[in-house]
Structure formats: structure tokens, C-alpha cells
């Protein structure tokens, strides 16, 4: 299993990970190497075997929707890199033409 340079760049774009030029080559080699080791899974017969998403038997855990105090806006925004009033401020989502 060998990844192309384009595939590495595509995955990085999906993951919203900026990449320096040298990272791309490094990941291309390392990820290909690791993925090759995953090939062993193909040897296992999983016909009629259901997947396990997590190991305990709980599913659809419900609880009452009870009103309770939440964090104050000050506490929530205390770590904000940029804020404006009681809002997180981010850079423009849409670019000008």
C-alpha cells in the first residue's frame, strides 16, 4: 500500500492540517509503511462477524432533560483567542471576490 503525494495532500486538506513541503514527503513514506502493516487484517475471515463500536453493552443511554446552571459567558470565553462582547470572533468565512 503506497500513498501518492496527491493522496497525502488530499488527506491533509480533509483534516484541515497545513503541511510544509518536507512534511508531505515524510508522511508519504511513513503512512505508506504503516498502512502496509494494516494489510494483515485482510487475512482475517470476518464473514458474518458484526462490528464492535465500543466494548460495553450499553446503547441508547437516555436521561431526563433537567435544567441546571451552565457556565457563565465569562468562564466560557475566558480562553477565547479573539472575542467580541459575548461572542467568539473568527476571521471571515466568505472571501471577497
Amino acid at each position, binding site marked *: 500500500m503506497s500513498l501518492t503525494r496527491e493522496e497525502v495532500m488530499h488527506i491533509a486538506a480533509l483534516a484541515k*492540517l*497545513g503541511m510544509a513541503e518536507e512534511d508531505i514527503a515524510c508522511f508519504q513514506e511513513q503512512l505508506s509503511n504503516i498502512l502496509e502493516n494494516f494489510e494483515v487484517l485482510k487475512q482475517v475471515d*470476518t464473514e458474518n462477524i*458484526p*462490528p464492535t463500536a*465500543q*466494548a*460495553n453493552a450499553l446503547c441508547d443511554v437516555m436521561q431526563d432533560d433537567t435544567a441546571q446552571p451552565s457556565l457563565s459567558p465569562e468562564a466560557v470565553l475566558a*480562553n477565547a483567542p479573539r472575542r467580541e462582547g459575548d461572542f467568539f470572533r*473568527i476571521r471571515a468565512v466568505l472571501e471577497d471576490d
Partner: protein
Amino acid sequence: MEIKSCLTIHEVGKLLKKKEVSAVELAESCLQRIEKLEPHLKAFTTVTAELALKQAEEADRKFKHGEATPLTGVPAAMKDLLCTMGVRTTCSSHILESFAPPYDATVIKKLKDAGMVMLGKTNMDEFAMGSSTENSAFFVTHNPWDTARVPGGSSGGSAAAVAAGETVYALGSDTGGSIRQPAGFCSIVGLKPTYGRVSRFGLIAYASSLDQIGPMTRDVTDAALVMNTIAGHDAGDATSVDCPVPDYTQSLTGDIRGLRLGVPKEYFTTGMQPEVSQTVRTAIAKMEALGAKVDWEASLPSTSYALAVYYVIAPSEASANLARYDGAKYGFSYAQTENMWEVMEKTRQFGFGPEVKRRIMLGTYALSAGYYDAYYLKAQKVRTIIRREFEQAFEKYDAIVTPTSPTVPFMIGEKTSDPLRMYLSDVCTLPINIAGVPALSLPAGFVGGLPVGMQVIARPFAEETIFKIAYAYEQATDWHRMKPEI
């Protein structure tokens, strides 16, 4: 008065109860030891001296008013991925370097209610991804038994701090061995509880179907004492199971006559250092001499697939969990650009270290269109097979015993250039998280002055069986009394 270092929770508890020492004196003594040893060990990312002394004063008041619990006034260190209100919680990552959570993790809250004295936060592999604590974005932690070697990881700071007596106990987290492997490497006790036994609310997530929080202590009794406080259901973690928490100290009887132990041959194969294998076999023979019935030819046939299953599932979950670090709400944010998407990409490029990026990339690939069935779904199916093999084994055995790691602690820098070789140091611990069962590592001896850990595994929610076996072995040996010369 001079306070001996490397005391256990139950030893410290007696001194406090008899008023031979105060919680403040105890905290001061630990803080002095931290100051003396940290230049050599680097186990802490943050030392909270002021907070510790304040909590110690409160603990002394609790003793005065007869409100003390077994953990009141006992100094503790918390892995730096457990949210501590107002105290920096970094995950040993640049991206969270200045993050001060607005709330406490449930385990922190429970320990505070029990009277904990928190000394600080401990170093780890960034976002708990690693086996040596070398992936910390800040510095490498050193093994107290040989400072040229790694303490294991990812909870390496917690393990080193307990082993060196900087703290009396610590909490760690374990996704593929991150409590047990460093516990083994530092000759302490580390328990990964059953998936669902301890609430993860406020644990910064790595791989949510595998993560568990657990105690790292000087002996088995201490691990039982910590579990008595941190275990239990919590509405804040939907995967936490609502079943009663026993008094775990009741299982510390020393009697293991008639218990059936399985020793799976697959855990003693490729890549295992012969001396480690021999040391663990000798330890198991000791259990046999104590009256346990040992099957030396047990088998968990699909063990060799666990590594691939883990390195598909854990990075996949990590790629989703770590999507939240976008530079908008908290943590590091790249400021030298005007475009939102670029802020996000650059924040993650400069905020995450190489191993974290590697796993995000792996997981994103495994979950991406066209590859989901071949990797993620396939791994989840093999996960079922591994889980079923454990279930079948526990029809025959009360517990399974294996080495914790295939080698003794390795040299700092020895495996950093080859991620796959590093991944292999967790081969004995990964299958346990995949199956969701509990397992504990305890000291089993030394090879050339370096610690060897032994792993005791039991069926879900049978932590008592584990404690019973581990305690009997511990009391019959002296390994837990040995202290590193540092």
C-alpha cells in the same frame, strides 16, 4: 519532622490519622522533593504549590473535625489531560499550552471532595499518543531507575513522579497501555479499569471507545483505595456503567488458592526480550506456588492482529476528536492571516506535533470515502473476534497473566525515528483496550537493574479478582518495596 519519601497512601494515612504529621508538612515535603528531583526527571508540566498548600490546610481542618477519608491530605499528581478548573491543562501540546479549563473532570471533583492535595499536572505524550513521553511538546521525562531511559508512556510523568516519590499517587489514562506500560517501566502499580467503570467526563479525549482513567500507585492497596473513590456511574459520561462500586480493599485477602490463571502463549513470542519473558514466568510460578491453578498453554489466537486493529481504530477516533482544535474557541490560534480556513490549517500545523499529525492523517485516511469498509469497518469486525476470544478465555480462567511490555525500558531516542517500532512496545497492552476488559500492571522483578511489569487481566468489572491476585503476589515478594536511587 523528617518525613520519609516514597510512602504509600495507607502509610501516609496512618501518620495523618495519628497526627504524627500534618497534611501541610506532608505537602511541603513532597514539594521539596519535586524541587530537588525535577531537574533530573521532568515529570511535571505544572507544579501547583500554592494550591497544594491551600488544600493541605483544608485537609488538616477535615482531620480536626473528623471528616477525613483515606485520601484526605494525601498528595497526588494528575496527568495533564484531566481538566482542572483554573489550572492549566495542556495535554503536553502547544495547541493547549495556555488552556485553563472552566470546570473539573469528574475524577478531579471526586478526589477534591475526598480531600486531595494536588501537587501538579504531569507530563505525557502529546494528546496521550505515544509510548515513551518523548512526544511531549515540552520536554522528555526521565525514568527514575535510569535517567538515560524513557519512563514509558503516555502517562510517563505520572509513573516517574510516583516511582521517585515526588507524589504519593497519581492518575493516568490508558487507551492502549498508557497506564500499564509506564507503570511496568517504573516498577509501580497501574490499573486500567473496565471500560465504563470510571467516568471520563473532563478527560480530554483521544480515542473514545478505548480511553479509561485509572490509578498509578506504589502498591496494590493504594490502587484499591483510589478506585474506591474514582469509580462509579456519572451522567456526564454516557458510557459509564451504572453498577455498584464495591469496597475494593475487601478483595485484598492474600488468598488465591484455587484461582484459575491462563498464560496465553501468544504474549511470549516475537520481539520479546528473553530475560523479560523468564522474569514474568518466574513470577507466575510464584502464583502457582501460592495455590493458583496455572494453565501455561492458554491461547488468544488473534492477538497478533490487535496492533493493526488498534492503529486503525484509535487514529480514526482521534481524527474526529481532535477536529475541535480549530483556533476559534480556546488554545493556540494562528493570527498572521485573515482567512478562516487558513487560520484553522495553520493553527493545526503549528499547534500539533508530528505523532499527533501522523495519527490524524492515518485516521482521516481510514475514514475517508472508499477506504472506510477496508480499514475502519474491517478493524471493528476483527475487534469483535478479539473481544470474543477474551470472553471464551474467561469461561476457563479467572484471570489471564502476561508480561506488560516485551522489553525493559528503552533508551531515550532509541525508537523516535521509527513510529512502527515504537508502536510495537504496546503489543501486550493494546488487546485489553480493544476488548474493554480491566488489567493491572504490577512489579514482577528486575533485569539488569531495570523494572519488569506483569499484567493481570480479568473479565469486565472483575477488578476485585485482579486486586486479589496482584495483592497476593505483591505480599509474597519485595519488588514493591524497592526504590530507585535518585
